[in-house]
């Protein structure tokens, strides 16, 4: 042991002289490297950072807490989602209008995928709930009824009511999407239930009418 002690680096001190009366060849090594500077620096910085950060973060200024930042992020996301259509009113006309707007059907599809697939299947072919892809419907006589079923539920709670859980925009867009599923015939579709009903009305042609349906839109110039 004592042989390689003298080779030990820098801050080790061979102090066996101090106790040479022990008369053994056992080395007594005292090694006490200084703390590395980077280590001290980072440690001090993390400590110095903590109290000011804590008091800065919790000084009551608006917009810092998780809930407030969430509100801001949610508002930003809503603007992204619905900037062009604003806040829709949940009406039959809007359901019909967006049935023919493919880009917004995608939004309806996203809402459907998040909320409806566990009963109606990812393609709308039906699981616990009925098939939405054929021409037969259980509680629907015409396109506006889709919205009503969504809002109020049906089948004694088998279909839950979504009013209040989804925004009016989402209710309209997912209704349009459900209407658009008609005739898509996915591979895993359930057999038809209910009664066959007439085809959806065609796309409303008059520009004025669609502007009316869009009455609450921010982007509508008439509304000012």
């Amino acid at each position, binding site marked *: 042991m004592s042989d390689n002690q003298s080779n030990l680096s820098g801050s080790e001190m061979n102090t066996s002289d101090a106790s040479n009366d022990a008369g053994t060849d056992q080395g007594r090594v005292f090694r006490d490297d200084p*703390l590395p500077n980077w280590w001290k620096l980072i440690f001090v910085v993390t400590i110095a950072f*903590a109290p000011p950060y804590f008091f800065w973060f919790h000084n009551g200024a608006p917009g810092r807490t998780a809930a407030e930042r969430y509100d801001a992020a949610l508002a930003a996301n809503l603007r992204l989602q619905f900037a062009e259509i604003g806040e829709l009113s949940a009406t039959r006309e809007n359901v019909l209008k967006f049935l023919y707007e493919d880009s917004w059907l995608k939004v309806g599809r996203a809402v459907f995928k998040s909320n409806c697939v566990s009963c109606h299947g990812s393609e709308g072919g039906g699981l616990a709930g009925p098939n939405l892809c054929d021409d037969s419907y259980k509680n629907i006589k015409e396109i506006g009824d889709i919205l009503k079923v969504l809002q109020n539920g049906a089948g004694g709670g088998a279909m839950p009511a979504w009013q209040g859980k989804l925004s009016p925009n989402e209710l309209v867009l997912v209704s349009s999407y459900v209407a658009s599923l008609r005739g898509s015939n996915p591979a895993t579709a359930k057999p038809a239930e209910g009664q066959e009903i007439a085809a959806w009305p065609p796309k409303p042609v008059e520009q004025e009418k669609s502007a009316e349906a869009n009455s609450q839109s921010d982007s509508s110039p008439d509304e000012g």
Partner: protein
Amino acid sequence: MNSGAELGADMTEASSASFGELDVKSFDDSIVRMFAAATLLWGLFAILVGLGVAHLLVIPKMFGGSEVYSFARLRPLHSSVALYAFLVNGMFAALYYSVQRLCGVRIWSAALAWLHFVAWQVVIGMAVYTLPRGLMQGRDHAELVQPIYLAMIFIWTVLFGLNYWMTLRRRRIQRLNVSLWFYSATIVTFPVLMAASNVVLPVSWVKSYPLLGGVQDIVLQWCYGQVSVYYLLLMPFLGLMYFFVPMVSGKPISSHRLAIVHFWALVILLLWSGSRNLHHTAIPEWLSTAGMLAGLMLWMPLWGGLLNGWRTLRGGEANFSNSTVYRFLACSLVFYAISTFEASLLSIKSVSAWTQYSDWTIAHLHNGMMGWNGMLAFGAFYWLAPRLFQKKLWSDRAVSVHFWFALIGVLLSVLPIYVSGMKQSNMWNSLDELGYLAHPDFIDSLNASRGMWWARILGGSFYLLGLVVMAGNFLLTWLLSSEPSGLASEDAERLAMLQSSNDLQDGAEIPCLLESAPVLDAARSFERTSALRWHQIWESSPGRFYVIPLLMILIVSIVQLVPVLFLQSSVPKIASVKPYTPLELMGREIYLQKGCYSCHTQVVRPLVAETMRYGDFSRAGEFVYDFPPFWGKRRIGPDLAREGGKQSSKWHWRHLDNPGLLVEGTLMPSYSDLLDSRIDFERIPSYVDSAKLLGVEYEGENEDLVQNAKDQAERIAAEIVSAGGSIQRGGVMTLESQAVALIAYLQRLGTDLNTPVATDDAQVAAAQ
């Protein structure tokens, strides 16, 4: 100064002389052998169960859907056994060995040590018996039933702690070696934290309720319970590191003052970090910030152990090619470096917003436990084996084989689940260009993980094989090997080195840089203080290593926990949140016993992607009637905090019966037994009584409560039947099946927040 030097020399002489005489007969190593054997056996069991759990994620029907072997029952078993039986037994073995050497005396009472050994194994046996039977507390960091924890605390403090303390008192080496600081702090801290996190009200041997519900129980579990586990995986293992690394490398600890600084920093800071895993949940936000900052401050103290270990290990006689023990220790330190850095990283709020509830948490944990704790224990055991058996290992090659198996095992277990964790986080949290969920279907995240889950099974198998090789090697050493190991003299030398590096701290030889400099005395005394010589005195009195950690617990409790536990403002009341109905209480109990919380969390965080997927974020006031709350740690299924009203009762009915029929690719097992078994309505009053004991108000006599439950069951059954469900199944009426109780609970979840309270106000107005 001079006398100090002489004193130091005398002490050194005394200690090295005593080591010269000490041979193995001076110590009691039989207890070490017993704990080591238990470690190996429980280790095999723990990893085997872990492999079973891992298989259930890729082959959900692997065990034929048997309840005892379901994921929700095996997962807590795996984690409890891996921690308390594998790693802690290993720690006990190495600790009993090192403490005797570092104190220079036999263990105080061999009988007590044996009792400790037997009792600890019995307690683990109790855990193995209860957990698969659904006897759990359902609390994230206190899953075992209360009597087991009480037994653990008793064994730890009396059978183990007292023996340790008395050994310290009778030690022949005055200064406590670094390892002993870490051991002492753990031995005093762990049982206190464990006891504090188990403040529960027992109503029977196997059933107890937390005294404080909701957010307060969560804080108790994480700020005491989780920290106690954290303490257990860090502090004593650092102590082991400080013993085995110098013994292997033959070099003294590279920096004594770094050891001092990082030890005390850990003692002071670790306890604050419990809330760093609760970011964005319904706990008070200042607590979350405090946890984050503590997590960041912990980075360097944690790495202090790494630096000291690494610098001590390197440059000695052992190296990567000539010593397999060295390999294990070096790898252990590398995994320690990664997982401790990661711990600090994950404590940052925005990082944790991304990683929380995914496989990432699991990867982090396994990185630490398999890599740092496991590899260190293996290294220590291979170093110990020739000393315990007094003969050479049967095969050195087998050690090398184990090393590579273990290394591949850790990497293959951990890296794939980091990847799957990132995939899951990404799929859950990302929005598409329209501002909608990019992956609205939760199942997608499971399907994307499957390949990685297969890979981690391979990793676990390697790890298991490695342990089998180790056990075999030890067995054959015991039975067949005869060549004496002849390590005693080398060990005595190194022990003396380890001890003298401590002893010679005696100030005299350290030059005071400012001694002759023209500065004020104050500067000199500051220089002396910062050179940490005062710590020499501390090292001679073990009491400080007990008292200061205890004091820290007290301080942390006063600053962090008391406000949460006793200030009403921490949990703002929500008028519309009402107690659970008697039937829902029973549903909660089923939820707990089935272990639903193993896969489903019940807390929605205020993050856009999360509220879009699950509904409005959770408020603290929503959980006041949850004893305990089922917040959970991981999402293998979707969050259920807002499940109420999302699906029809009929859907839940069919889903419990056969989840695969409704959700393609689901991992959830069938709970059809709930449809086939009757509710024991007679037990309803006992659940209500427990709730009353906890301060929840219920009106009515027992008969009313039972009637109330029956009425609610009838309503739900009516919904199911009117939606086309069957009236009875196998002789059990729908309205009396346990599934209905669970559905009642599920349909209640998260619905109170937006329930109008007008009727209440009207009543109040009418009363006035």
